[in-house]
C-alpha cells in the first residue's frame, strides 16, 4: 500500500507522477486507480486461492478432519480461513491494494465499532441463560433433550423396525 499512495487525505497522488497526470487522475476516476493493475492472471490467481480456501473450510466437515471431537479447533480454523478470504476479496477485487490509505479512515473505525457492538451484547444476550426463572427453565431445551431423542431413536419401541 505504502509504496503507491502515501498521502492520507485529499485527492490521491502517486510518487513520480507529473502534476498533469495527477489532474488527469482526479478527472477520470475518483479513486485515481484507472491503470489496468490487475490483469486476468492476477484475478484468476485470487479466484483459485478463494476456491482453495473454501475447500479448506469445507474440509473441517469431512470425516478426515482430525479434530472432530474438539469443534473449537475447527471454528478457529474456519474463521482464520474466512478472514484470509475476506482480505483477498478486499485487497484485490475491491482494489484496496492499489488504493491510498484514506479508505481505512472509514472502514477500520466501522469494523472496530462492529466488534465493540458484538462484545457489548455478551453480558445481556450471551449470558441470558445463566440465570433464568423456573418457568423458563421448564420449557428450555438443553443437552439432555437431545440425548433423550437419540435414546428414543435407538432404544425406543420402534427402534428395531426403524433401523
Amino acid at each position, binding site marked *: 500500500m505504502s509504496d503507491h499512495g502515501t498521502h492520507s487525505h485529499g485527492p490521491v497522488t502517486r510518487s513520480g507522477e507529473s502534476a498533469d497526470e495527477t489532474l488527469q487522475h482526479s478527472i477520470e476516476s475518483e479513486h485515481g486507480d484507472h491503470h489496468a493493475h490487475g490483469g486476468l492472471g492476477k*484475478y484468476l490467481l485470487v479466484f483459485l486461492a478463494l476456491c482453495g480456501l473454501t475447500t479448506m473450510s469445507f474440509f473441517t466437515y469431512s470425516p478426515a478432519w482430525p479434530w472432530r471431537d474438539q469443534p473449537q479447533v475447527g471454528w478457529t480454523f474456519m474463521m482464520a480461513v474466512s478472514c484470509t478470504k475476506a482480505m483477498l476479496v478486499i485487497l484485490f477485487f475491491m482494489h484496496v491494494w492499489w488504493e491510498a490509505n484514506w479508505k481505512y479512515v472509514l472502514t477500520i*473505525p466501522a469494523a472496530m465499532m462492529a466488534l465493540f457492538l*458484538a462484545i457489548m451484547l455478551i453480558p445481556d444476550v450471551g449470558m441470558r441463560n445463566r440465570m433464568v426463572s423456573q418457568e423458563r427453565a421448564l420449557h*428450555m431445551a*438443553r443437552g439432555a433433550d437431545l440425548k433423550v431423542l437419540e435414546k*428414543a431413536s435407538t432404544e*425406543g419401541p*420402534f427402534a428395531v423396525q426403524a433401523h
Partner: protein
Amino acid sequence: MWLFLSTEIMFFAALLGSYVVLRFGAPIWPKPHHVHLSEPIGAFNTFVLICSSVTVVLALEAARANKASLAKIWMLLTLLLGTLFLGVKGYEYSAKFSHGIYPAMPHSRIYERPDLYYGSAVRARLDELRKTPVGQVPSALRDPADAEAKSGDTVDLLQRLDAAPADRLSADQETARTRLQQIQKMVMSPDQQAFDMAVVADQVMPLPAEGASHGGGHGAHGLNDAFPWLRLPTVIPGGNMWASTYFLLTGFHAIHVAVGLLVFGIMCTWTLNAKRVGAIENIGLYWHFVDLVWIFLFPLMYLF
C-alpha cells in the same frame, strides 16, 4: 460508496455478532444436519458468489479498456450467477419450509423439548386432522363422494387413511400408517411417560445422525415425510432460535443480492464503455461486499 459500505459493515457485523453471541449463549444449538442444512449446497453457493465477484471485476476491466461488448458479457454472466445463487437459496428455503422450519408461529412447527407440552400439540394437530375441511383433502385420499359435499363439511383424514386400500400406499407409507396408529395411542394414553413423547418426536421427524446424507434436506424417513399433509409438530432442541437467526441473516443477505441483481439488470441495458467505469466500480464494490458477508455467513451457518 465506501461511506455506504462502512454503514453496511456495521449493519452486518451487528447481525453476525448477535448471531455468534446468541449461538454461544444458548444452552443447546442444533447441528446443521438437525435442521436439514446441506453443506455441499452451501459450499456450491459460496463458489457461485466467488465466481460472480470475478466476473464483475472482469466487467470493470473490460469497460476500462473500452470493450463494451466484452463488459456486457461479463455483466450478464454476473447477473446469471447471482440469479443462480438466489435460486439455490430459494431451494434451500423450500426444504426448510417443507420440514416446518419457519422463523415464527403459526407456520413454525418446531418445539424445543419432547415434553407433555409437545404431546398436547401433537394431540391438537391430530384433532384438527379429524375435522379437515373437504376442500383440503389431499388428492391421494379423495373420495368420489367429496364432490357432492357442502363447503362446510369436514372429513376425518386419519380414519380415511386407516381405511385406504393398501394398493394406494407405497411400502414406506404403509409402515408409516401403522406407526401413526401406534403414536395416536401413545399421545392419547392417560399414563404416558416423558420418554413416550421422545419416541413420538423421533417418529414424526427423526433428527438425522451426523454425516447422514440427506440430499439437500428433502430426505424421507419420518411420518411428516411419508405423509406431507400430516404436518405434525416436531422437536428440534434449540431450533426456534436457530430458525430466527438463520432466516434473518440469510434473508438480509438475499435482499442485498436481489438489490445487486436489480442494478446489474439495469446496467445490462447500458453501453458499458469507459464512461461507465465509475458506476461499474461502485456496484462492483457493493457486490464484493455481499460476497464478503457470505464468506462469513457460510462457515458460521453451515459448518459451526
